[in-house]
C-alpha cells in the first residue's frame, strides 16, 4: 500500500535556525518518485523537488537540502538558516504504480523573527 507519513504536525523555530522536516513513505514498488511541495499562506502549491527511487544522492538547492535514505524509507527536507519567508505548510508526496501522488498530512513550519 502507498502511504506517506509526516509525523511533525507543526514546527516553530527562530529565524536563522536550521530545521529538518521528516517524511517516511511506504510502497511495495521498486520504482517510485518522491516529492516535496510548499504551500505558503497565500495558498498555492509550489513544487520543490522530485526524486526517483534509483537516485539516492542527496540534493542541495541553496538553503534547501534533501536526504533520501531507502534503508529507512525516508526523504527528509532541511532548511538551513531559515527565514520568515520559509513559513508555510510543507507536503511530502509519493508517486508509484498507482499513477497518483499521495501526500502526507503536511508539516506547518513557522519561522519567528
Amino acid at each position, binding site marked *: 500500500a502507498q502511504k506517506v507519513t509526516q509525523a511533525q504536525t507543526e514546527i516553530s523555530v527562530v529565524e536563522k535556525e536550521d530545521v529538518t522536516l521528516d517524511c517516511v513513505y511506504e510502497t511495495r514498488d521498486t520504482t517510485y*518518485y518522491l*516529492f516535496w*511541495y510548499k*504551500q505558503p499562506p497565500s*495558498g*498555492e*502549491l509550489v*513544487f520543490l523537488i*522530485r526524486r526517483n527511487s534509483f537516485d539516492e544522492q542527496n540534493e542541495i538547492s541553496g538553503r534547501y537540502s534533501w536526504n533520501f535514505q531507502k534503508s529507512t524509507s525516508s526523504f527528509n527536507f532541511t532548511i538551513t538558516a531559515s527565514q520568515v519567508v520559509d513559513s508555510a*505548510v510543507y*507536503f511530502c508526496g509519493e*508517486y508509484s504504480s*498507482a*499513477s*497518483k*501522488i*499521495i*501526500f502526507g*498530512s*503536511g508539516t*506547518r513550519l513557522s519561522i519567528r523573527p
Partner: protein
Amino acid sequence: DTAVSQTPKYLVTQMGNDKSIKCEQNLGHDTMYWYKQDSKKFLKIMFSYNNKELIINETVPNRFSPKSPDKAHLNLHINSLELGDSAVYFCASSQGGQVAGELFFGEGSRLTVL
C-alpha cells in the same frame, strides 16, 4: 499565461445546491487531477484523467462528477452540496506515463457550503 487556471476562486453556496468548478491547463500535459484539501490541510486525490479518460476515482461520492471535454480541461460538478464538501479544491496537471512528472497546481477554489 497561467499554466493551470481554475474558476471560480471562491464559491459560497447553500446546502443542496449544485455547483461546478472549471479547470484549464495550457501546458500540453496529458493528465489532469482534482485534489481536495480539507480544513486540516490534508490533501487527498479525488480523480485523475489521462487524455480525457478517467483513470483514478478515489471512492468519491457519486455526487461528484468530473468531466473532461478535452485533455486541456477537467471540470468538477458537485450535486446536492453538503456541509462536508466545504474545502479547497485544487486542479493539477502533469505529463504522465511511466515517468512521474511534477504536478502543476492551480490556485485552488475555496468552496464554502452554508
